[in-house]
């Protein structure tokens, strides 16, 4: 009998594994929060935590958190400036994580509509990708 705990399973969307996730950024001094709800691509080629488009920076600065500069490595070896701050992953699909959520690096860069969940997040679980059937599962042990 398996002791694995189911977190998410689903079919690929447009050939890629996407999940709906809720990210929360907290100002530790005031307790104010900024929430990002969007689709994230499970990206095993990204060694960071969470990646979202740079326009979210304005929502974050509104709660008094100022993301800091830091370069990000892109596909093809190019390096580009980005903004970084601390965030919490609170929900994937219908699965809610215990409060305050999973601590992760949030990278604000580019203008992609969808976000990315990288290895720093995926390291907490086992992710299985069935390419031919375009199906994936995320479980925790």
């Amino acid at each position, binding site marked *: 009998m398996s002791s694995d705990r189911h977190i998410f399973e689903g079919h690929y969307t447009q050939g890629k594994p996407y999940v709906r996730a809720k990210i929360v950024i907290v100002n530790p001094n005031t307790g104010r929060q900024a929430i990002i709800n969007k689709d994230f691509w499970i990206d095993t080629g990204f060694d*960071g935590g969470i990646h979202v488009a740079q326009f979210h920076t304005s929502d974050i600065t509104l709660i008094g958190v*100022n993301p800091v*500069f830091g370069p990000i*490595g892109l596909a093809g070896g190019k390096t*580009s400036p980005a903004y*970084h701050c*601390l965030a919490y992953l609170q929900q994937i699909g219908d699965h809610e994580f215990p409060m305050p959520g999973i601590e992760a*690096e949030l990278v604000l860069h580019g203008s992609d509509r969808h976000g990315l969940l990288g290895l720093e997040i995926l390291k907490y679980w086992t992710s299985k990708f069935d390419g031919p059937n375009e199906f994936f599962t995320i479980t925790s042990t």
Partner: protein
Amino acid sequence: MALFTPSDVTLSEEYRMIEYPLLSRTAIEQEGLELETKQRLIPAPSVDTGSGFFLRDRPLQLKGYPVKIEFTEFPFNIPWLPPNVFQLLNKLKKGSITETELVRLMELVAKRASDHFQLTEGKFVAMTFHGQIIEVSDTRVGLLKKIQSRKYQEQIFVWRIGSNAFSGRI
């Protein structure tokens, strides 16, 4: 007029010729050496000793005022930066810096800072654009947690030592 020289004087002269020259030469040499040493240690009047006072060859130390070494020109907490960094810093200040130049600036400052502070490869650091280290951590999350919503007088950036980016494609 004939000169009379007592016999004891002659003897004394002979004694001097044999013994004194040796003794006096040694004493003169000794005095000369001492004088030379003192002159070497005492600063010449033309030498600017700042606010320090000297008594012979030693600095005059007032009771309760230990001799202090002050480095006002070269602070230890900021590395030396090459001139091209300052050109890029001026551009950053004016807001006319391009993305490529900004990455180059972070790269140059991080390289100088990691050499200056001998930071270990793989550490995650937050630093100012002048190379002053704000925080160091073993993990990205650890570093971001430390600096989240703290106010800094200068703009800062994050860097992974030994890498060319903070995070990204692998």
